[in-house]
Each structure stands twice: as structure tokens, then as C-alpha cells.
């Protein structure tokens, strides 16, 4: 008993020191964690070394390094979406995101996640359609069996760049690879601009159906909801035009005239309106409002 208590007494000092150090750790960990959380994206990742260097260092682990870069981008983007109830507050650093994705496909040209992310996010939120198409062309050289890549490219050409012959060409390719008649039909329909909204909806549905990631799924379905709302207004406008022979002056007029049950809400927080030529538009421009970081 006495020996045991002597043993404890001998331990008293080291125990006190350890306890003190644990308290110090507790004091420092909260500011440290908050510092790490608020570090800017590029700082967080450091700048990417040249791809040749990265490839040499990665030795036989190139695929893991590539996937790591893509997940960094995804988590960064998901983190931004998560803040302030789904509203992007900090302007995302699209340049850095695009740079990382390009680095990733040079390490692993087969990685579908990179092409998918570039297509689902970069194309819509920044004007990087041509860059995305170059990326897709690069991917098609490797993923020669994959109909998703020409499907994406066809959509970009048709919807964003209004280059219908190119769009049709890529849709044909997607149709050949998938054996799916739908794409061949789409290729034909793409030559008709009036079908654009329907096409965008069909496209987003395909994208969202395969989305296994929650952030990605939410991002796509939000866009899908907005486009479906715009289609509803467009259908009402056409009905109004057919009945009266003139274009409605506003969305409200469609409501009062009974062509709309209610004015659909823009999930991005904007308001739908009719442009002078009757096109359905929204004040949000299909993107969350971006505020500058304080």
C-alpha cells in the first residue's frame, strides 16, 4: 500500500506536466482548426507542381493521386455549397479548380470523375465551355467506349455554343457507342433550336440519374427544377400566343389570364420574366447570387 502510494507520488510530476500539456493542446486546437478551415483554397492545396514532376513523384500511384486531386476539388466546392443554406457566399476559385482537374486527367486520362465534374460544374458556372470541350476530346481518345463524353460534348456544342452541326456529330457518336436511338434522335432534334429547353431537361435528368454524390445531385436537380419551371412558363406563353395572336407582356399576365396555375419559384432565388422577344428568363441567371467575401 505504502509502496503503491510512493509510486503514485513519484508519478505526480510527470502527470501534472502531461495534464498541463493536454490543457495547452485544448487551448490551441480550436483557433488552429478555425485557421485551417478558413485558409484559402489555393493555400490549402498549395500550388500544383508541374505535371511532369507530379507524374515522376507519383511513381506507380498516379491513379490515386489523380483521384485525390478531384476529391479535393469536389470537397472544396461542396464546402462552399454547404455554407449559408446552400448559397455560395465566397466566389469559388474556378481557375484553381480547372487547373487541378486538368492536372488530374494528365495523371490518369481514364478518370471519369474529372470529366464529369468539369461538365457538371465548370461548364455551367463559368464560361469555360470551349475548355471543357477540349477536355472531353482528350478524354474520348482514352475512354473510347464511353458514350457519356460525346454526349456531354454534343450538349455543349448545341446548348451553349449554338454550333448545331458539331452538336449533331457528337450526338451521333454517342448514339453509335451506346446503341441508344435516343441520341441519334437528339442529334436530329438539335438542329431545331425550339427544342432546346426540352433537351436541356432530358440532359440534366440523365446527368442527375447517375449522380452518386449528394452535392452533385443537389446541384443538378436544382438546375433541373429551374429549367422545368421555365418550360412551364414557355408552354403557357405559347398557349397565350396561339389564343390571342400576340405575346404576353409579363409572367403575371399569364397567371391572370389563367394560363398558369401559379408563378413558379426560381430555386436560385431569382424572379422569372419575359424578355421583349418572349423568351423566358430569370433574374438569377440560373446561378446562386455571388457576394464578395467580407
Amino acid at each position: 500500500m505504502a509502496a503503491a502510494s510512493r509510486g503514485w507520488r513519484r508519478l505526480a510530476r510527470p502527470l501534472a506536466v502531461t495534464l498541463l500539456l493536454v490543457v495547452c493542446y485544448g487551448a490551441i486546437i480550436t483557433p488552429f482548426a478555425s485557421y485551417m478551415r478558413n485558409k484559402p483554397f489555393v493555400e490549402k492545396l498549395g500550388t500544383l507542381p508541374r505535371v511532369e514532376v507530379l507524374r515522376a513523384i507519383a511513381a506507380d500511384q498516379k491513379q490515386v493521386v489523380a483521384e485525390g486531386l478531384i476529391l479535393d476539388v469536389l470537397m472544396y466546392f461542396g464546402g462552399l455549397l454547404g455554407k449559408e443554406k446552400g448559397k455560395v457566399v465566397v466566389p469559388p476559385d474556378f481557375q484553381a479548380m480547372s487547373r487541378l482537374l486538368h492536372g488530374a486527367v494528365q495523371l490518369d486520362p481514364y478518370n471519369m470523375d474529372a470529366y464529369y465534374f468539369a461538365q457538371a460544374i465548370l461548364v455551367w458556372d463559368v464560361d469555360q465551355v470551349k475548355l471543357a470541350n477540349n477536355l472531353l476530346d482528350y478524354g474520348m481518345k482514352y475512354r473510347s467506349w464511353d458514350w457519356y463524353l460525346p454526349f456531354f460534348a454534343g450538349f455543349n456544342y448545341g446548348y451553349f455554343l449554338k454550333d448545331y452541326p458539331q452538336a449533331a456529330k457528337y450526338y451521333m457518336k454517342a448514339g453509335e457507342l451506346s446503341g441508344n436511338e435516343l441520341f441519334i434522335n437528339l442529334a436530329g432534334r438539335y438542329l431545331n433550336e425550339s427544342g432546346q429547353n426540352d433537351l436541356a431537361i432530358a440532359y440534366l435528368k440523365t446527368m442527375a440519374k447517375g449522380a452518386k454524390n449528394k452535392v452533385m445531385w443537389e446541384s443538378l436537380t436544382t438546375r433541373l427544377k429551374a429549367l422545368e419551371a421555365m418550360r412551364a412558363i414557355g408552354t403557357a406563353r405559347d398557349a397565350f400566343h396561339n389564343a390571342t395572336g400576340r405575346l404576353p407582356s409579363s409572367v403575371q399576365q399569364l397567371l391572370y389570364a389563367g394560363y398558369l396555375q401559379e408563378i413558379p419559384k426560381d430555386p436560385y432565388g431569382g424572379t422569372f420574366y419575359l424578355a421583349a422577344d418572349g423568351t423566358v428568363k430569370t433574374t438569377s441567371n440560373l446561378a446562386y447570387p455571388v457576394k464578395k467575401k467580407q
Partner: protein
Amino acid sequence: MFDIVRITVKGIFRDRVFHGILMAALLLPLIPSISQLSMRQVTELSVTLSLSLISFILLLLAVFLGGTSLWKDMERRYTFSVLSLPITRTTYLLGRFFGVALFLLITAAVLGFVASVVVTIVAGNFPPDRPVVWNNIYLCVLFDAFKYILLLAVAVLFSTVSTSFFLPIFGTISAFLVGSASQQVYDYVHSSSGQVLSPLVRQAATALYYVLPNFSAFDLKVNAIYGVPLSTGGIVLTVCYLVVYAAVLLSVAAIIFSKREMK
């Protein structure tokens, strides 16, 4: 020689280094949950992670077992008692090499089996767009083992010239990094953008390319993960390359080891 092979394999199972490295294999069951981070290629990511982990474990085993096996024997003066037996030093050296090589193959087989279970589970929950090509995955694991057997031969060679374990361990790691990048350096030097380099640098890089072991040939990950078809001719050539290159390394190691003075 078979006795030495047997003793080597038995010894490794009792080795603490092996136990430590085996801890890394506990990460394999975590792969199904990590793979779900992927947006569009969950199964492919599970294959990637499994193969990477296997490759990493085999690398550690090859470096540490290969780099310390001979050194430990000499340090503990086991070599004296062993070499007093009626066997040549070459037999002893080869016995050690084949023992560790056999062990690497056994480890690869066991880890490959666990990985196939992991990938099957993931593929069941998240069916991939294209079916998993199992033959490519098994071949990839086998060639990983081959790659590290070649690295093991490098480690054995370093062990015969060194009196400490620093050269075998760090020399082998450097050889692995350089040997994994040599193909890229060679391709770069001979590409149009490599023409800006001075002819001397280009020739030196070419010479090194032919002398150093080429580990990138054994990397079949792309074929395993994405089901890209393999070329039979390339596979056969790579196996021939392994046999000839390892044989050259081992014969040089045997010459040095036979001439070496044991204190």
C-alpha cells in the same frame, strides 16, 4: 537451397517488421466506404485503392525485408554458422532471395484475394458501367509482385556491398523512384519538347534508361481499373525482362558476396 528458402519464409512470419507492415492491410476493409466519395466511378475507385494499397504494402516489404535480410544475418553473425554448413555462399544468397520472393508472392495472393472480396462487395452495391475485368486485376497484382521481386534483387545487390542497412534501404527506395520515372524521362527526352536539352543530357538519359530497371512496365493498373485490353506480347516480354534483369543483378550480387570478407 530449399532449406534456406523455407527458413527465410518462416523467419519472416516471426519478424516484427512484417507484423508492422501487415497493419497497413487493415485499411482494405475501409475501401468500400472511401470509394463512395467518387462521383461516377465508385467500383473503379475501389479497384484503384485496393491495388494501390497492395502495391504500397509490397513495396514496404520488398524494401525492408530485402534490405535487412542479409544485413541482419551478418550483424548477428548467423552467416558464420550458416556458411560453415556444406553450402556455397551463392546458394545461401539465392536461398534468401527466393525465400523473400516467395513470401512476396504469398502476400500478393492473400491481399489479392481480400481485394477481390472488397471489389465484389462494392460492385454489388454500385454496379459499374462496364463489368469488372477480373483477369486484368489478378494479373495486375501478380505483376506488382513481379515488380517488387525485381526491386528485391536490387536490394540484395545493395546488401552485398554494404556494411550497414542505410544503403540497402535508401538505395532501394531511390532505385524504385528512378526506375518508375525512367520511362517518362526517356519519352520526354525523345519528344519534340525534349529537343531543347543538350545532346549530352539526352544521351546520358538514354544510357541510364537502358541500364536502370524499368518498373513502369510492370504497372498494369490502368488495364485493371478501366478494363483496357492487355497485349499478350507485352506481358511475355515483361516476364522475360524480369527474369533476365533479376538474373544479372543476382549473379553480380553472388560474385560480390563470394569475394566479401566476413569479419
